[in-house]
């Protein structure tokens, strides 16, 4: 909104926004015949503002009308709880007709790309969510270059967008670019496996990678800490560029900054998914029932599910799209143009 806001104390900013918002509402709301012949009179306290502080609200309102779209890819060996996690994140049941292959059938399977689309609406906001699944990844005896179908898919979406963008009819461009890739790391290893390293290196310059520790309820807190440290070290060591949470603005309040710090320190998130409701301490919670206790998915002392959900949906969805457009797509586009000339 420009430097002039930085010098105004927060309370005053809120007030002026409210005043301007009300003004805009009056100006934009449908008027009766009588009102139209007599233009609205600006009140005194409204006259001092130009009124563009409400721009974010206008954008917000338009977007709400248009709806959002988001494409999320999930990758990792089979059996790491990817489908359950996706269903938990978006409170859906995307995989109810899925047929799981047995080991013999999987011997000759190649990596596929499968898309599921679902329209979700909450409090008037519409989200068109596309989940890109990668069954078969990492499951074979020989997994050499098993990420190739995946990099090919991502490139194809870039290519399609590039062509559309350069084309004549740009009104209804479909954006199928992958905005985020959740990569599931097995909790049973001691860190990254060779296939994990190779996958992430093949994709880190094409898509935002968010690595996760899957099925984290099989680890005790000290094991989770050690594993996270180990993974962070190895990500550094191998020069893997995972998605970086942006720095929060210096004028954010302390609570927000604290949350932001905790978020960064928890990466990679150790997650658990569940779509079943169990009874715990007289309450009904989403979780997993074991003979020795109940794991609550939304309990932050049990796992990082809430952090992941907040990050992915509530705070960083927009940034993920921005980085995809501004960095990954632009890289692709520049390469393409270079190759053409």
């Amino acid at each position, binding site marked *: 909104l420009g430097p002039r806001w930085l010098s105004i104390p927060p309370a005053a900013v809120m007030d002026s926004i409210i005043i301007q918002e009300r003004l805009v509402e009056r100006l934009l709301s449908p008027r009766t015949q009588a009102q139209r012949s007599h233009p609205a009179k600006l009140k005194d306290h409204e006259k001092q503002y130009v009124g563009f502080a409400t721009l974010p609200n206008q954008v917000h309102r338009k977007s709400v009308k248009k709806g959002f779209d988001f494409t999320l890819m999930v990758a990792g*060996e*089979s*059996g*790491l709880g990817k489908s359950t996690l996706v269903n938990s994140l978006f409170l859906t049941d995307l995989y109810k007709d899925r047929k*799981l*292959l*047995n*080991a*013999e059938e*999987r*011997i000759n399977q190649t990596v596929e790309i499968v898309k599921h689309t679902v329209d979700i609406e909450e409090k008037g906001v519409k989200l068109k969510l596309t989940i890109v699944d990668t069954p078969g990844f990492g*499951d*074979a*005896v*020989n*997994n*050499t270059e*098993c990420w190739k179908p995946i990099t090919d898919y991502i490139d194809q979406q870039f290519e399609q967008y590039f062509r559309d963008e350069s084309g004549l009819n740009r009104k209804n461009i479909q954006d199928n670019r992958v905005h985020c890739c959740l990569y599931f790391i*097995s*909790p*049973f*290893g*001691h860190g990254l*496996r*060779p*296939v994990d390293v*190779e996958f992430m290196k093949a994709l880190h310059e094409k898509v935002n990678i968010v690595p996760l520790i899957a*099925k984290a*309820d*099989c680890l*005790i*807190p000290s094991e989770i800490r050690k594993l996270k440290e180990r993974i962070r070290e190895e990500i550094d060591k191998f020069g893997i560029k995972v998605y970086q949470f942006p720095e929060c603005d210096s004028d954010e309040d302390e609570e927000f900054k604290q949350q932001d710090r905790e978020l960064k320190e928890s990466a990679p998130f150790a997650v658990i998914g569940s779509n079943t409701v169990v009874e715990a301490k007289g309450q009904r919670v989403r979780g*997993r*029932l*074991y*003979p*020795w*206790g*109940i*794991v*609550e998915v939304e309990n932050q*002392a*049990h796992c990082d599910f809430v952090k992941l959900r907040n990050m992915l949906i509530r705070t960083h969805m927009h940034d993920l799209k921005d980085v995809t457009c501004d960095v990954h797509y632009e890289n692709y586009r520049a390469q393409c143009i270079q190759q053409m000339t």
Partner: protein
Amino acid sequence: PHAGPVDSKNEAAMSELVPEPRQKPVVPMKPMGINANLLGYIGIDTIIEQMRKKTMKTGFDFNIMVVGQSGLGKSTLVNTLFKSQVSRKSSGWNREEKIPKTVEIKAIGHVIEEGGVKMKLTVIDTPGFGDQINNENCWEPIEKYINEQYEKFLKEEVNIARKKRIPDTRVHCCLYFISPTGHSLRPLDLEFMKHLSKVVNIIPVIAKADTMTLEEKTEFKQRVRKELEVNGIEFYPQKEFDEDLEDKTENDKIRQESMPFAVVGSDKEYQVNGKRVLGRKTPWGIIEVENLSHCEFALLRDFVIRTHLQDLKEVTHNIHYETYRAKRLNDNGGLPPMTVETEENHESNL
């Protein structure tokens, strides 16, 4: 002619004992001609006691191999099984080492003692199995190692001047660790077990079973059992080696209901209900390793150590080793090194 399996059962047990020249029998023999029944108790049954005393003095060998992807808890489980620090993890191996590029075979021996009985336990670890991007034929070094031990034993057996007690490095039991995905076996699991179930006793276990609820565990076990059956994989205890009805009934129950054992391992103790138990402490409860309602570790331990330990060795000696030996005889038209004398010696000892 070489004695058949039935006779060599005792041979196997006796091979631990030092074959000594004939001594005075402990119980004086009754003079011939008198009806033994009339004179009461002979005391043949004390032979069992003699064997037991001998075994305690000489101790016995047990070689257990663990196979599975890294991080499935193999070392911890072996330590838990034998209540000692006997695995590679505890012998100065640095956990921070990289995954080896090919499968390595690392054997570590310890002597552990319990109730006056000494066991020379060798744990054979196979780091690098299943960890690469391309795992084709990664079972070959393992198969090679197992066959090499058979070869070593064979060479000793046919020697002219044989050692009193042939050191037994043959793998008696191979624990194969299945990853608890909850879906089914992986292609690599099938490949390994298909190749190796013919040369060694394989006991499949489901590792890190604390990642599954009771329902998930039951379903997974059923699916795994079915897959093993459909693919003709005979894990230990193999159906064809059940000796009598008693064995068959007992083993059927284990094969069809308990196996593969879903296990959890730990070397840390916690206080639960006033007792100290081995377990894992999570924010939502303590998983007790030896509690049968939590996991099947106790079943695995009883099976491998308390009931079937000797049988594992016997099947290895009488079946797997004999198969290897027969194949060698057929392939080379003879065993190395061979003279007519040796052949006679060999036969007369039987």
